[in-house]
């Protein structure tokens, strides 16, 4: 059964509605998307808030041994001594395994310690008395070493420019800071094991852990019922997984290996830092003619992965010469993080656009409308509607305000490729009328479980309550890893195909029982109909199943499909901020986030993705910063006290607007695009309020105060606005 055979979902049945957002009717965009289901909460929401939902981190087994890495405390150091005997003498310590003697960054592991319980683990590590000799280290990108090269092509573009903007934008290392830290519990019993992993890729973990466990694939299962956040850092098993795998296979015992908060910050990946240097020329009206853009990506001990997506390709920038350099230093290596490379690029790009607009004396929104290449014209519509919604007309010219509290507006854009991959789904229909959807892919907190259930119920035309979902197991049908925003778009066609297959089989049974051909019948509103005539109820049909259950199978190869039209998923975000010019404190007041999304399966979970992206974007803009001590290379804030993440009092009003492009009818991923433009739009808004750009994230009070002061000096120099 291919998805081509399954007719596209319609808006019939289970609470379908036309209005995708809670916006007042007057503001509702005409092409607001149709949703399959409006108000369903996550199926597991009660389990999550009551604690009944068990995460990998919650799993324990009798006789379990605990593992923790022996980690380098400094940016660069050599292990010159340790006392393994003393560590082993600590009651409960099982073993100490030291495999190396150099640490190239704070958190680098040189071995691990095993203990019967958590307390013995930390006592053992202390008794180990690892002695480290500190070596010189490098803690980040050195801006002085980043020299923008000069190319003829770019210089030619600058020749005809009325203005040239030279600027340097920088972003810090951001850690994923998932609430559930990385790790796994391997319940190793005899010649079999269950691996409870916190992962974005059930099957990827199965592939990777297999070599450690030396068990055949039919002897172990990777399970992942709930995940407390991944954001791109949980595809690989990491060191913590490798330790667990080694120990499980050698001791043949259950093993618990989860990072603590410190290890989570130090060694489970990050969004790399970036330095972007630009030298761009533009004409009097702000039209960008071209120039030079250099990106330096701070990749820790890695050698690649530091690119920042500037130019993003969304705006017309003329002739741009671009260079990219990965800068290694003594820090943890990056991993994919929610729209890898994009928020850092968009920060530089959006702020640069506002700077260009300000110099040229044009409205930055008008400039974007002019420069935006927007192939679908969706963003053009979003710009106009968003301007109305946020009250762009109240925006004061940049640098014109002199009050204590200054208001600023900013805007930024996003686009995302609609990616998808292969997926298999089974739907079992039971004699009692219930249905179980089975997919091995994982729900990383996005609502994947819920989306599958909603689609299956919709397609089978039965109440949602009848559908349960078995998810997150390598024993279940194959599904995608959750990266690149592919999970929903990959599974949706397979769910529809599986449901259609189940329907086909069911209708055959109806035909056998009451005559005619299977194709004469259809499922509708919990009944079996022939034309308009109901011939049997769903429950009655199920009771007549020849065996306990019937399984519909849907397979999708991830390629072309009637559900997908080409084009990116576009978006625009508008931001309003208030800046206290005496304290430098920035409060984001309001964010309007337009996001083209194709067909919405479940409004709540879709909006939640956008809201979450915006929150993470603001947090990146204002607070987050993995700070390495410049002398020792140790992270000084490996906790959630000084590694600040936006909290309740910092939360603006966020208004997501789900946007259906007429052409884009399929299900599209929403995980990544909403996080792209936020920080850039916040930075643009702060610039608008203050008059001098803050070109480094996070936009801390000290930086804002410096900008306020610079603006005042510039104002005096101009003899202007005092």
């Amino acid at each position, binding site marked *: 059964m291919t998805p081509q055979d399954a007719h596209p979902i319609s808006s019939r049945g289970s609470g379908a509605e036309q209005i995708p957002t809670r916006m007042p009717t007057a503001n509702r965009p005409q092409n607001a998307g149709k949703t399959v289901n409006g108000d369903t909460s996550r199926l597991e929401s009660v389990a999550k808030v009551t604690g009944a939902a068990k995460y990998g981190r919650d799993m324990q087994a009798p006789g379990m041994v605990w593992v923790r890495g022996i980690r380098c*405390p*400094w940016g660069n150091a050599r292990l010159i001594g340790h006392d393994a005997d003393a560590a082993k003498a600590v009651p409960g310590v099982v073993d100490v395994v030291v495999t190396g003697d150099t640490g190239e960054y704070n958190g680098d592991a040189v071995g691990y310690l095993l203990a019967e319980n958590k*307390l013995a683990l*930390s*006592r053992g590590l*202390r008794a180990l008395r690892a002695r480290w000799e500190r070596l010189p280290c490098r803690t980040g990108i050195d801006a002085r070493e980043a020299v923008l090269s000069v190319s003829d092509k770019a210089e030619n573009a600058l020749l005809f420019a009325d203005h040239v903007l030279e600027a340097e934008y920088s972003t810090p290392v951001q850690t994923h800071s998932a609430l559930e830290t990385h790790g796994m519990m391997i319940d190793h019993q005899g010649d079999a094991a269950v691996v409870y992993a916190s992962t974005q890729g059930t099957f990827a973990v199965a592939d990777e852990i297999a070599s450690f466990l030396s068990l055949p694939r039919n002897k172990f299962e990777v399970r992942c019922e709930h995940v407390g956040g991944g954001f791109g850092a949980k595809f690989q098993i990491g060191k913590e997984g490798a330790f667990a795998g080694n120990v499980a296979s050698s001791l043949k015992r259950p093993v618990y290996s989860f990072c603590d908060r410190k290890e989570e910050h130090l060694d489970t990946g990050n969004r790399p830092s970036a330095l972007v240097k630009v030298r761009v020329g533009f004409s009097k009206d702000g039209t960008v003619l071209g120039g030079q853009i250099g990106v330096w990506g701070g990749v820790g001990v890695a050698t690649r992965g530091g690119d920042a997506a500037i130019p993003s390709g969304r705006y017309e920038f003329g002739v741009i010469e671009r260079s990219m350099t990965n800068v290694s230093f003594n820090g943890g290596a990056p991993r994919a993080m929610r729209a890898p490379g994009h928020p850092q690029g968009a920060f530089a790009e959006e702020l640069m656009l506002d700077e260009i607009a300000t110099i040229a004396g044009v409205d930055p929104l008008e400039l974007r409308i002019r420069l935006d290449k927007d192939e679908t014209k969706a963003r053009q519509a979003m710009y106009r509607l968003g301007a109305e919604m946020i009250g762009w007309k109240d925006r004061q010219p940049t640098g014109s305000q002199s009050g204590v509290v200054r208001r600023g507006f900013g805007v930024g854009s996003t686009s995302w490729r609609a990616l998808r991959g292969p997926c298999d789904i089974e739907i079992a229909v039971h004699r009692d009328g219930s249905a179980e959807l089975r997919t091995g892919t994982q729900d990383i907190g996005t609502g994947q479980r819920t989306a599958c259930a909603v689609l299956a119920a919709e397609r089978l035309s039965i109440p949602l309550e009848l559908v349960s979902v078995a998810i997150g197991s390598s024993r279940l049908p194959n599904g995608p890893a959750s990266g690149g925003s592919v999970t929903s778009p990959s599974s949706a066609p397979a769910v529809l195909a599986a449901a259609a297959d189940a329907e086909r089989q069911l209708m055959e049974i109806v035909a056998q029982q009451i005559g005619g051909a299977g194709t004469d019948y259809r499922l509708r509103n919990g009944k079996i109909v022939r034309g308009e005539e109901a011939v049997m109820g769903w429950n009655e049909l199920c009771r007549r199943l020849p065996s306990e259950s019937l399984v519909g199978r849907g397979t999708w190869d991830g390629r072309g499909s009637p559900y997908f039209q080409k084009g990116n998923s576009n978006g625009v975000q508008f931001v309003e901020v208030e800046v206290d010019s*005496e*304290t*430098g*404190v920035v*409060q984001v007041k309001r964010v309007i986030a337009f996001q083209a999304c194709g067909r919405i399966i479940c409004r709540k979970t879709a909006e939640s993705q956008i809201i979450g992206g915006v929150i993470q974007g603001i947090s990146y803009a*204002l*607070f987050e910063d993995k*700070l390495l*001590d*410049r*002398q*020792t290379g*140790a992270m*000084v*804030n*490996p906790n959630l*006290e*000084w590694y*600040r993440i*936006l*909290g*309740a*009092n*910092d939360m603006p009003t966020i208004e997501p607007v789900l946007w259906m492009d007429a052409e884009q009818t399929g299900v599209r991923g929403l995980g990544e695009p909403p996080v792209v433009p936020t920080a850039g739009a916040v930075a643009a808004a702060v610039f608008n309020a203050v008059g001098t750009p803050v070109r480094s994230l996070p936009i*801390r*009070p*000290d930086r804002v*105060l*410096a900008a306020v002061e610079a603006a005042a000096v510039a104002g005096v120099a101009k003899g202007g606005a005092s």
Partner: protein
Amino acid sequence: MNPFALLQADSVAEASAAAKDVRLSVLKAGGMDLLDLMKEGIAEPTQLVNLRTVRDPALRTIEAGRIGALATLADIARSDAVRASAPVIAKCAASAATPQVRNVATAGGNLLQRPRCWYFRNEQFNCLKKGGSTCYAVDGENRYHAVFGPGPCHIVHPSNLAVALLACDGVVSLAGGERATLPIAKLFHMPDRGIRDESNLEPGEVITSIAYSPAPVSGFFVVKERQSFDWPLTMAAVALKLDGRRIASARVCAGAVAPVPWSLPLVEKALQGVALDDEAALRAACAKSIDGAEPMRDNAYKLKLLPVAIRRAIADAAGAKEGQ
């Protein structure tokens, strides 16, 4: 964390005796700070003496002019008596930490919590305060450190409450030692007078309550980088005596700028006789707050914040007056 004995004290006398006699014995109130220190391996007591099991109601009573040492920050923040007699204290308590922390953190523990310097709190840095030979903040990451004081340690005092109490001429009542009372102004010392600890209490001395002078015209302002769950970048507490619309006398104290809650006598003096609506004179007086400051490489911004925080605390106090 090492094994330790837990003594559930029945009386202050018992707690005091235990804390005095047993080596490495430590009093525990809410435990918010102590447990953090133990988990990080910075405090390694062999005995915890639980004060919270002492049932004496006086330890928890709050009345105008006196706060029991075991009263929580949440109790203080919502106490009508405190809000009327010294709004600055209630506001300070309310601004500290998070609702969850405030429900557990006690007044006594808040005063005596250890500093938050990230080198101090990370076990691996054996800095001066922990008996090592260097202050890592001097050439390291010092954006949240002190702008006053000659060192050699550059912590900022962490207690919000202490700043407000200092502005209200607070005096702690003690049990178990030789002294019956100690002014807040004398409760803490600068690092050059002892770097390993911050308070002047002797082992076994227990704070039972804190008295303060009524300050109905008092106010507070704090600047935080993040508005949820964050420490002050700079804060100011003021207590005013007014003569009509003029400041007859003022107590002005600052937090997060020095190793101890910081008195600003120059500002107090300059404020004398200034009219509440004389913007220029207020500004000039508040500008004196940074006299003698010696910022480190990354914390000079605090010198911009401090006068602003004081000015706004004065406005807050004037507002409290208006509200009466």
